[in-house]
């Protein structure tokens, strides 16, 4: 009989990532609705065992750890296999991950490998009266919000990063650290990373910017973006642009924000010369001023 929750965690510099701590908080809340069934966590990668105590303090009852070479190298193929092994070991009702750079690649595959589909980009998760996972997620670019009952066994969901704030650690919590039951061999890696190219950072990345000053069609041409740049620099943020502005060739598409461009979650978004479309921000944890 399936029981409990399995969280697919990630490691950042040998510690559970912020999204992993967020997922643990959500996992504990879900567990409270299903008679405190266990919250298990997969930590796969370099430093997994060392990160386990922090994860336990944040709500994990069991931590499955694996540090096999392909996992330490960050191969997504290896993480998909590790997640499937952990799901076999934990036999959970629910599997929860995060829609991070890794999770957006890995979680859909985990869901299909476990015989279901992924409740993607969830802003909240709950359990209904029949014990089903209820996933709430923005769709249609934030124009609508869907609530889905997940029917898979297990149900699989990915949380939107920053949808909740991670909880405080409780050092008195105890938990179990268990090695993943199967070794993850290099042969599982079929999409091989052969080269990594770091981009010369030109100012702040849009995705990380706490402040975004965005311009659209209403600016009438590329020239006013210089002023937006000055304002963004002053506010410690980055410049963005609407699809219309990028389509017009005023700025490269790497500046494009929103549905067809970059997904961002600034604290402050200033839209200048952009009509409508603020619905894109409706679903984000963002205060909108335009």
């Amino acid at each position, binding site marked *: 009989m399936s029981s409990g929750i399995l969280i697919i965690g990630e490691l950042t510099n040998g510690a559970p990532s912020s999204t992993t701590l967020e997922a643990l908080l959500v996992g504990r809340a879900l567990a409270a609705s299903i008679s405190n069934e266990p919250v298990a966590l997969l930590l796969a990668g370099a430093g997994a065992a060392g990160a386990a105590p922090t994860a336990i303090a944040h709500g994990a009852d069991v931590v499955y750890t694996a540090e096999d070479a392909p996992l330490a190298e960050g191969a997504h*193929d290896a993480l998909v296999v590790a997640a499937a092994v952990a799901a076999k070991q934990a036999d959970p009702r629910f599997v929860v991950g995060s829609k991070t*750079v890794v999770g*957006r*690649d890995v979680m*859909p*595959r985990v*869901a*299909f*490998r476990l015989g*279901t*589909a*992924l*409740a*993607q*980009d969830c802003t909240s998760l709950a359990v209904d009266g029949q014990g089903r996972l*209820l*996933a709430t997620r*923005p*769709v*249609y*670019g*934030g*124009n*609508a*919000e*869907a*609530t*889905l*009952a*997940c*029917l*898979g066994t297990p149900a699989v969901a990915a949380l939107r990063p920053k949808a909740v704030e991670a909880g405080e650690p409780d050092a008195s919590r105890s938990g179990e650290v268990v090695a993943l039951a199967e070794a993850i061999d290099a042969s599982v890696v*079929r*999409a*091989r*990373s*052969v080269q*990594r*190219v770091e*981009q010369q*950072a030109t100012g702040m*990345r849009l*995705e990380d910017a706490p*402040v975004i000053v965005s311009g659209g069609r209403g600016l009438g041409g590329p020239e006013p973006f210089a002023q937006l740049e000055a304002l963004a620099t002053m*506010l410690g943020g980055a410049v963005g642009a609407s*699809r219309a502005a990028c389509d017009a060739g005023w700025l490269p*598409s*790497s500046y*494009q924000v929103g*549905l*067809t*461009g*970059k997904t961002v979650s600034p*604290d*402050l978004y200033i839209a200048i010369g952009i009509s*409508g479309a603020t619905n894109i921000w*409706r*679903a984000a944890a963002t*205060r909108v*001023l335009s």
Partner: protein
Amino acid sequence: MTLKIVVAAKQVIDPETPLSAFQIDANRVSTPANLPPVVNGFDEQAVEAALRIKEAVGDATVTVLSMGTDFALDVIKKPLAMGADEIVLLQDPAFVNSEDPTLPVTILVAAIRKLGDVDLVIAGRQASDWDNAQVPMGIAEVLDWPIATFAQKVEATDGTVRVERVLPDGHEVVEATLPAVVTVSNELGSPRYPNMRGIMASRRVQPLIWTAADLGVDPTLLAPAFELISLVKPESTVKTEMITGEDDEDAGRKLALALRAVRLV
């Protein structure tokens, strides 16, 4: 040997549809009839990626697959006008666009198998309606093919696909042996505009249509992943405060002070 490329493209409601024209009735989205649908933006970029590969390798074909209940032919034929070789519409009253990626994954896999000898499947990173961002991954899992996601560049030579995968701080080069699945991201660049010759040529093409029966799939037998409980326009929690001043400069100053008061600057 001819490189056989399949592009999965979805017809969606125009993501630029104003919120006021966006209606939800009985958990279904509708837009006014005078707002035509579009090919999902990322899928147009998938077509572009396929055409660039074809130009680079020469001996290649590009087949577009699109699943739905009904199509606006002049819209869905755009990939042909761009230069794709053929389009197969996977069209059946049962092929309803829904929150559940299970059906499109099953149908597209059946179509890829029916085409046979496919080397490379390319799709956009997500569709602008349900934003599920997982049908390509599902296809790769079911076919047990390798997948490289979020590509800004795709090359396919000598039985290998080579992808520049977008990362927050740059990119990584990922290689996989064909057959494989690739998803493309907006960093790939703008899809080409169809030229007049392409448009004229596409007008003469009647798309192939494959139904559920043609594909040997009974959609009613699929186990759904989700039950849609509700689909609503989110409660608007937007609070608008107009800030005015004696002149623009004064209003700007007051806005800056208001932002500072809530610690946003």
